[in-house]
Structures are given as C-alpha cells and as structure tokens.
C-alpha cells in the first residue's frame, strides 16, 4: 500500500512567525524526512509554493478555463495527484487540461518549492 500524506496549514499564520520558530519547524521536518527515509517508508515529497501562486484548470464542454487561485470547492475532495515536469505554467496547464479529472472535477496546478 502507498499512502499520500497531505499537509494542511494556515499560510498567514506561518508567514507571520518569528524566524526562530520557522527554523525550529524546518529542523523538525528535516529530522522527520531523514527518519522515514531510514525506516524505508519514504517514496517522495515536496514543499509547495503558497496558494496565491496556484491556478485551477477545468474543462467543460471541451473548453478549457483557468482561474487564479487554489481549488476552493468543498463539494469535491482530493482524489489523487501527479507530479509533472513542464517548462512553464502554460505547458503545465495544458497537461492539466488533458487530465480526465479536469473534466469531472478540477485540477489545481501549484508550483513546487525549489530545494537547493
């Protein structure tokens, strides 16, 4: 079995924290990641850019519509995810528009936070 673990948190509160608090949390994340790598549970994971950089793609009647912002409809629930490599937002959105989920629901396109 594989499980996707989804992290939810309040972006505004996170951004307002003192640097020391943020550093402490990063330390906890690093330790957690190392821990599950060593225990053999780790399959992949990324930090995401804030939801203000999100774009939501829908296809209705063959017409692609893109809107600014994260997917905010509570009637639908997260059903899966793909991680893709694309040269820019237009390419990523075009891939999202081909995903069956864009016809039946909505696909949120969110850039991954680059880790250097």
């Amino acid at each position, binding site marked *: 079995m594989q499980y996707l673990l989804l992290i939810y948190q309040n972006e505004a509160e996170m951004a307002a924290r003192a640097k020391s608090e943020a550093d402490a949390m990063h330390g906890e994340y690093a330790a957690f990641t190392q821990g599950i790598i060593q225990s053999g549970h780790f399959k992949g994971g990324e930090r995401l850019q804030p939801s203000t*950089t999100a774009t939501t793609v829908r296809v209705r009647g063959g017409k692609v519509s*893109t809107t*600014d*912002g994260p997917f905010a409809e509570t009637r639908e629930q997260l059903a899966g995810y793909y991680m893709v490599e694309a040269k*820019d*937002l*237009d390419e990523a959105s075009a891939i999202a528009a081909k995903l069956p989920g864009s016809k039946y629901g909505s696909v949120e*396109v969110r850039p991954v936070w680059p880790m250097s």
Partner: protein
Amino acid sequence: MADELTAAAVERVFRAEAGRVLATLIRLVGDFELAEEGLQEAVTAALRQWPDDGMPSNPRAWLVNVGRHKAIDRLRRRRMMLDRQRELAIMAAIESEAVQTDRDDGLDDDILRLIFTCCHPALNRDTQVALTLRAVCGLSTEAVARAFLVGVDTMAQRLVRAKAKIRIAKIPYETPPPERLGERLEGALAVIYQVFTEGYAPTEGPQLTRADLSAEAIRLGRLLLAQMPERPAIAGLLALMLLHDARRDARATAEGDLVLLEHQDRGLWDRGRIAEGAALVERALRGPGLPSAYAVQAAIAAVHAEAERFEATDWPQIVGLYEVLLRLSPSPVVALNHAAAVSMVDGPQKALNLVDALAAREELGGYHLLPATRADLLRRLGRRDEAREAYRAALELARLAPERRWLARRLAEL
C-alpha cells in the same frame, strides 16, 4: 527655461515610453520585478541628467540601456539572494542580447508579450486590468488604486502578489502560439474593454464618466491594433470605444446630469472620433469569418453617430444589428437593448411584450435598466400608474448618482 520645458517633456516621454521600456527590460533581464526596479532607477537617472544634458535623441533606447545596467547592478548586489544558476543565466542573457530599441516600423514584439503576460488567464480579471494599467500604460500604483476605488496599500499588495505569481508559477513572457492566440486575444480585448467601460460608465461613485480610464483603453486598443492589424476583432473594439467616447461631452450636463441619446446636443459629438470609428467598423465587419460582437456593437454605435437628428436614426437597421448581436453573443442586456430599438420601429406595445418576457426569465434581476426601460414603454403607452411603479423599482436598483437623479426626475414628471 530648459528646466521647465524638460520637466513637462520628460513626464510625457515617461508616460509614452514606460510600457515599451518595461516590456523590453523584462525580455532582457527575464524577471518582471527586476525589470521594474531597473526602469525606476533609469527614470530617476533621467530626471537628474536630462535637464542638464538635454533629452537624448532616442529616449526609449536611453532608458532601456540605463535600466539594463541598473538591473545588472542590482543583481550583483543581490548576488547572495539568488541561486547562482539563475543569476548566471540572467547575466548571460543581459550581456549577449543586442538591444533593439530603435525600430520604428511599428512592430514591437516586447509590448505584445507584456500585454499578453498581464492579461494571462491564470491571473484573475481585476488583477489583469490592474497590472495592464500599471505595467503597459505606466500608471502609478496610486492612479491604479484610484481606478479601482481601493487604498494604495491594497493595490500595491495585489500588484506584488501578481508579479510574484508570474515569477514563481512561471507564467510565460511570450506572445501566445497561433493555436492559442485567438482565445488569448479575446481575453486581452476583454481587459481593455473593462478599462474602457469603467471609464465610460463607472459602476459606482459620484461621476458619470472617468475620461482618463477611457483614454488609456483607447491607447491600448491603438497599440494592439498597430501590432496585429490583421485581427478584425481589435478594429471592432477600438471602433466601439471611439464611437462611444465621441459622445462623452454630450452625455452629461455641466451639473453632471445624465442626458439621453434622444436629447443630446449632436454638435458636441467628436466628429474626428466618429469618422475614425466608422472607418474601423467597416474594416472590422469585412474580415474573414463571422464579425466579432465588438464590431456589431460598434456598427450600432456608428448608425447612431451618423444620424443628424434623433428622429433621423435608421431604427430598422439598428434592430437588424441587434438581432445579429443576439445570435453572436446572446445576453439579457442585449435582448433589452433590442427591445428598446424595436419600440422605435414597431411601437411600445410590441417592445413591452419582449421586455416582460425577458423579466419573466429573471436573469436581469437587480439590473436597474430593466424596470427603467419598462417604465419608459409604459409611459409611452399612457399607463401612468404602472410606469410610476416601474420607475420606483428602477430607483431602488440604480447606484450611480446621475442615473438616480434622472430616474427621480422622470418619476416626478408623471
């Protein structure tokens, strides 16, 4: 003397060139915010140097060159803050790129790229409008905030967030590929039209029109048409804006009261704009394929503009054009205007039937012109009590002060 002359001239140059300079800088430095900072510093340098040294022969090229070097300086200073790879890529691009700014053949790919980036559908429509006014038109953040009736801080934050999204989500800085160009152009035209209508018929506030915004929209329309002369939809939109704008001075009294088309002093109409608009309408209708909704709306405005007196209006042609428009882009507002035109050909009773059918569909609830149109038709039919009731309903919905005053006057006259 030199100082005064230059201050005004410098201001004119900045307003005229800011969008183009920014557009070129973004291409050169590959980063919206860095380009803006470069432009800011170039403008500051110009304000210092031009009064003494005189205006350079090619101010745009001057601003691009100085802005480019200021951007490089900034990059060097920020070295630690950027990842090395990205910095090297930007530096290489800046150094290798031949600066092409002296082309005066009207072709300017950079400004097109900037327009399409600002009007990208991954930004919400209001943000597209704000960013276009700021980046392409070169309006200050304060002026953009005024246009949206929001505080400067709110607007500044919205613009910062939009630019961050462009950078982080990698909204491409390019003219869309042919297969997407039509759709993206439609989006850009909608942005320009929103700027225009907010200037011509603000949705709120004390003023009936805000000429500055309409002027910016017309400028954007001209800019886009110059870049893509083969697109009839652009000609249609520009024609529509010019023909409406031609009537601006006649639409309100000195006191700011609304004057209906029927009572407007046609001597106040701007004949130059009407001639330009009418020529563009023909161009817009001629194009291959179906005409755009803008072109048909412009054709309607042209028929009005070409009538010497209200009584001389070619109403059958206007009804016919509204029927075309109803097929091209059906909307309850178009249907309401169609009904009003029908009343001039077939009389108020037939129009009232159309308006009542429209009211029954309940799509225009909250739109003050529905009861206002009904009221006018009822008045013409001599059904005064019902007319009064309809005017009262319209008054409850109208938000603009001049429109409210006009409705109240009509009600009092009954």
